[in-house]
């Protein structure tokens, strides 16, 4: 017997109550799609092309390429003023630029030196960060080729890749950083302090 048929056989009060129930019931059985408010505008793939975020897989890396030799030129022009001609960093007032190379093997010592060479687990992060936020005085101004080149230069100066290697969307995710296995998801052992 359907709900409608059952209602027909009841008195007016009971039917009214059931009518109320019917008004309520559909909401409880709405699907996710029906609960959408229809706010927001769909975005196209073209619009999404304005954004990037490069994970370790390299997904989203743009076309283009660069070598350490090309990168040396880019670095001297756009990066050396803050990070130093020898990538040594500069903590002078008004600058505050991280050291980029060296420090390998120092992480377990009492004076760990964290650089892209010694600490950064993924080379893709280097590309992502330089493309999004560097040079500090003109963020996001480098071409993709320039970013690839300066990444190649920093990796090469840190002896992570050979000086003649070309970095592009295929080779960059394959670069194995020295500290690739140096990170562990924090298990928060301090929680043992529960009383």
């Amino acid at each position, binding site marked *: 017997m359907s709900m409608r048929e059952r209602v027909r056989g009841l008195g007016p009060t009971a039917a009214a109550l059931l009518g109320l129930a019917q008004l309520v019931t559909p909401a409880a059985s709405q699907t*996710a*799609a029906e*609960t*959408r*408010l*229809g*706010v*927001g*505008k*769909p*975005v196209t793939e073209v*619009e*999404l092309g304005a*954004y990037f*975020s*490069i*994970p*370790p*897989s390299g997904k989203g890396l743009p076309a283009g390429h660069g070598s350490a030799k090309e990168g040396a030129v880019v670095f001297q022009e756009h990066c050396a003023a803050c990070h130093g001609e020898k990538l040594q*960093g500069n*903590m*002078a007032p*008004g*600058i*505050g630029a*991280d*050291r980029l190379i060296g420090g390998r093997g120092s*992480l*377990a*010592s*009492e*004076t*760990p030196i*964290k*650089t*892209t060479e010694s*600490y*950064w*687990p993924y080379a893709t*992060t280097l590309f*992502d*960060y330089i493309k*999004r*936020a560097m040079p*500090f005085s003109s*963020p*996001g101004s480098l071409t993709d080729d320039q970013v690839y080149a300066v990444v190649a230069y920093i990796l090469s100066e840190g002896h992570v890749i050979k000086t003649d290697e070309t970095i592009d969307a295929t080779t960059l995710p394959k670069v194995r950083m020295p500290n690739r296995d*140096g*990170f*562990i*998801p*924090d298990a*928060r*052992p*301090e*929680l*043992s*302090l*529960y*009383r």
Partner: protein
Amino acid sequence: MPVQHAPPPPVEDEACPCRDGMFAPRGADRRRFLFAAGSGVAMGLSTGRARAEDNPPAGARSFDVPDDPTKEQGRAVGADGGYGSRSQFERAVRVRYPTPNENTSWSLTPLAALVGNLTPSALHFERHHGGIPTIDPDRHSLVVHGMVGTPKRFSMDDLRRLPSVTRKHFIECSGNGLTEWKKPTLKTVQGTHGLLSTSEWTGVLFATLAREVGLAEGGAWVLAEGADAAVMTRSIPLEKLLKDGIIAYGQNGEAIRPEQGYPVRLLLPGYEGNTHIKWLRRLEVSDKPFMTREETSKYTDLMADGRARQFSLDMDAKSVITFPSGEMRLPGPGVYNVTGFAWSGRGRVQSVDVSVDAGKTWYPAYLGSAPEPMCTVRFTFPWSWDGTPAVLQSRCVDETGYVQPTRQQLLAIRGDHGPSASIYHLNAIQSWAVASTGEVSNVHA
């Protein structure tokens, strides 16, 4: 946050308002009289008007001070242009930590000057990695895409059309207290704990946006991206966002301040501050974290074995006494209202204990308001000081049963590895020593 070096402690200005309380600062400040002898001389009694100061405190305007405000008309209604400012007698300000670069730096909330539980928006601590952007809300939007059914762009008008929530939450930078692991370094509570602030936040639950776009199978992480010069990015567990993540556009009853992410920021109750992406412009759902710079080379804690802890997202239970605290001076034996803040990133504060003997004996403190989840609570404790040296401590117990640890307990687990190695997530019990002279200082007890 630059962790390759240990930045120098700030050179504190002689008149720094962070010495608020009982330590009389230079210049006009009514607080200098709080515990002064109360004589007419100390009160500066004079006749006639006092001229307006040439340099009013930040956020205030200076006006002549009449000798008797009941004998002349005050300022005209609306003379402030329709947006008020604080009293010229209130001087507490945020203080920037002296990092080399002023654009990538942080400022600390003057906790000792706060009244009640909420932080005034203008005193909310700041952490910027590329300065404070100026963003026209009409040109700003939030894109939600990645592993979703229909990628969408939400204008600010769209966000305001959606159902909203209003909740009080603290935000704490995980670097709060980073100078204090090895030895007591900064002198005031503004320096040791000032990367903590609490606001009432208003916005749309992420869960609401998720329903508008529809989540695809397999999504587990979400990249949040800001529209500042750092184009700041962090990967957030999708589960957290769905649980209580807020896309917030309101703070303490008005639009979020530019320094806090105007026109819209991410609010992740109880998570480390860096994940609350300001000037939020994009959320990308993914199956894996993106391993951005901030979640690999920064905001990770290097342990003694050379490995680093990553994604330490929850801020554990913590508390601090703000009065009396470092650089203050108690004028003499007597009754004092010890007060401070307690908070936990894992739920409500359950209780707060106070000790005046360096943790040997604990007494329950009074909580000034009903604790809310992932929100500070103001505690108070009446203390009769007998004039002998004392060490004041507070400890927070949250609703999970976690007891705020001592620094020694933390070090026993984390190790003590270099000043630039393990610097984040210091939630140890803070000690303030009260000398027989009444002077209060930062100590490790």
